[in-house]
């Protein structure tokens, strides 16, 4: 094959790829629009009809793994203690932190050792000690040897008392009614084994005593772009798949699970970076294999807020980690792909994730490189070059604007017109540099996965500006 043919074939390939990708995303978007319309209708009805009463809600164990979280952990636990839910326990697991996390928790909550008859249903690193406080019986604290986030959650599952457990990142900010919202699928359908909620970016919002009370947009452009990404990922990425029971990710920042089902599939995989996604994909694979009737559902309400990285270095680490997690989760559960009994999951969602999310960065990065090289070496003329780039960028803008449409159809988180305008600008600007940079990071993640770099706790430098003044008070 000569060079000219190579560039011709490449152009056809990239155009076909982008058009196919656009069609799939638009179909997904259509599914999400139907879901959100229905959901909003039911939500408005519940406002004039009254919500479910407290005593039909099952008790929940909140599992909070913590590793070097000394800056935020006290406020996070305090906020969790104030959640509006009839019966729940909070299990905080210190996964061998090397900072002052352990002592801060012990001192602030005045915890004492507890003689727990611990049973190890899921194999984990050794547990050192359990701690409780008579006055705060909802809170249980476990100190264990370092083993990673998945290992810490598995300890939490082993120690949990209730039939449902909810994983919460130590830095997550929840709404007062977050648990009431996320438990709803379990009340609606007894075959539900997992439900996830929408995670939003807290940067720019006003937070008081661990709760978000006013949404806003950040000044930092990286965080602003991530707001658009989160809206896109949650409002149509997940909501689109949920009605087909083909949801492949529930964010580790806030997800509710049926404990016995998770234990029966072996709990979280401790040798995976993307333990949250891997568990969900494995649940699908094994429950389908067992021919068990089940549902994994998504709740579109914005019920969990998380801090987005504001520096390129931290963002790069995060995206590399996510891509490696995605690659690990899919590759470990390839049995789902086109499995005769896998339905929409094996024939739509799994191939979609494989071709557009897992392998997407390869096509995107090499697409940009080949087209640019082709143009620089005169194999592609200026007109074709600009039009091809126009497709890539236009498609990105289309997806982001679609996500904004879903936001307008539903929750109107950002109420001021100027905020809507800034989001519009972000949907356009993010396609000139930011998206391409992301593709490069994701490609690096893929390479690291191929090379087999060892998994570790995802370290993220947090600014946590809304927590700082309260933390210092906690120290006094």
């Amino acid at each position, binding site marked *: 094959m000569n060079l000219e043919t190579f560039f011709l074939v490449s152009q056809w390939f990239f155009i076909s790829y982008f058009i196919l990708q656009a069609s799939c995303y638009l179909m997904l978007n259509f599914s999400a629009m139907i879901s959100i319309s229905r959901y909003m209708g039911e939500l408005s009805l519940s406002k004039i009809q009254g919500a479910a009463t407290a005593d039909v809600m099952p008790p929940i164990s909140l599992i909070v793994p913590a590793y070097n979280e000394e800056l935020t952990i006290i406020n996070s636990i305090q906020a969790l203690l104030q959640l509006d839910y009839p019966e729940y326990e909070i299990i905080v697991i210190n996964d061998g932190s090397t900072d002052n996390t352990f002592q801060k928790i012990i001192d602030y909550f005045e915890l004492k050792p507890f003689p727990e008859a611990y*049973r190890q249903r899921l194999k984990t690193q050794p547990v050192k000690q359990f701690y409780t406080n008579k006055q705060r019986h909802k809170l249980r604290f476990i100190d264990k040897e370092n083993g990673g986030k998945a290992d810490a959650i598995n300890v939490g599952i082993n120690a949990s008392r209730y039939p449902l457990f909810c994983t919460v990142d130590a830095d997550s900010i929840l709404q007062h009614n977050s648990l009431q919202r996320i438990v709803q699928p379990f*009340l609606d359908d007894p075959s539900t084994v997992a439900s996830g909620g929408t995670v939003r970016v807290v940067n720019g919002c006003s937070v008081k005593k661990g709760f978000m009370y006013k949404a806003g947009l950040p000044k930092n452009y990286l965080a602003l772009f991530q707001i658009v990404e989160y809206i896109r990922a949650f409002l149509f990425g997940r909501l689109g798949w949920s009605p087909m029971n083909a949801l492949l990710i529930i964010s580790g920042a806030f997800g509710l699970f049926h404990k016995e089902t998770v234990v029966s599939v072996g709990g979280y995989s401790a040798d995976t970076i993307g333990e949250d996604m891997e568990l969900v994909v494995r649940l699908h694979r094994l429950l389908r294999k067992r021919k068990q009737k089940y549902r994994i559902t998504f709740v579109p309400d914005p019920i969990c807020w998380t801090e987005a990285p504001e520096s390129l270095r931290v963002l790069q680490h995060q995206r590399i980690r996510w891509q490696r997690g995605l690659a690990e989760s899919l590759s470990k559960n390839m049995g789902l792909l086109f499995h005769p009994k896998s339905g929409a999951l094996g024939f739509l969602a799994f191939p979609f994730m494989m071709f557009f999310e897992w392998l997407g960065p390869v096509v995107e990065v090499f697409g940009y490189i080949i087209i640019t090289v082709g143009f620089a070496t005169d194999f592609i003329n200026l007109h074709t070059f600009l039009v091809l780039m126009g497709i890539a960028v236009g498609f990105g803008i289309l997806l982001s604007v679609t996500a904004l449409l879903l936001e307008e159809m539903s929750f109107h988180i950002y109420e001021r017109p100027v905020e809507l305008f800034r989001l519009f600008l972000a949907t356009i600007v993010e396609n000139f540099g930011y998206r391409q940079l992301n593709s490069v990071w994701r490609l690096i993640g893929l390479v690291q996965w191929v090379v087999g770099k060892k998994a570790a706790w995802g370290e993220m430098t947090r600014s946590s500006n809304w927590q700082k003044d309260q933390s210092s008070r906690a120290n006094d």
Partner: protein
Amino acid sequence: MDIDSASVIVTEQITDIAIYSVIGLSLMVLALIIQVVFLRLRYLSLDKQHVHSVKKWRPILTQVLLGDSTDTPILLRRETCMFIEEWNRMFVSLRGDNLTPLQKLATRFRINYFAHNMLKKGRLRNRLLAIVTLGNMQEYSAWDDLIELLNDPNSVISLTAARALIQIDSEHAVEHIIPMILKHDDWTWSNVANILRQANPLHICEHLAKLAASAPVDKQPGLLRYLEATHCLQLTNVIHEILSATKDDRVASICLHIISDPAALNEVRKYTSHQRWHVRMHAASALGRLGSQEDLLTLLELTADENWWVRYRSAQAITKLPKLSLADLKELRDKQKDKYARDILTHVLAETEQL
């Protein structure tokens, strides 16, 4: 045709497709932007109307509730929907209080007439609003229409109709609703439980108990949980009867979990050696509620069970048995030869001391 010209044609084809794609994408983006702006404007307009409605009607509704309806203004036709929503919100927020003045005001404004129309012609949201309103108004004239809606294929409509019927006349509504529980697989447990709880237990317990006793085994667990959720356990001995008759371990588990009839103690004791761990666990818990000193030995044996939950519930049950002080319990623990029994008793005693 030589290779060069073929290559030019292919390149032109690619460019053409790409240009059409860019034009298509641009048009779609533009259409979406227009739609987003339209939705925002509509949202702002609805929000304005809502704020206006709340500002105008909330003080009036409050005044009416306090017994003063002399200065009530006329309801304009264009305000009707917003008024109905506000009226319902107020009604729900005051559940349990004297709501008759609100109902009288709605009748005076002929809201029942509007609701009937909305029920027949409206979009889904308006039909639901109509059903809720008719229920809150306890509008007997809607009885037949609502009974018919119990069979609606949309579960949101059928459940909302069930709730409205209970509000209108719970005694007669349960005769229609309870048999529908078995037919409606789309009715969620929590919704039905919430609806039934609005009825007087005296009206529902007998119907529910009969249905639970005669239902197929796979439906019995759900029905037994309704009996618990609707506070019927004290009003019926059907749990004891089902526990004596059942051969299904799931049904037995639920019966043991909710049973509160001391006459069933001997029946409960039979289940402490059941082969399924969850049955043993619930039997142990039931002994804690209903048992006596006689059951101490059985429970101590269960603290050495192979299953953690059976050990844990048995230890908890021991702490609830009558006439056992903390010192007695500690002594019992120290006498245990089995490590698991000692550990679980230590754990539960520490929990008890914390409470």
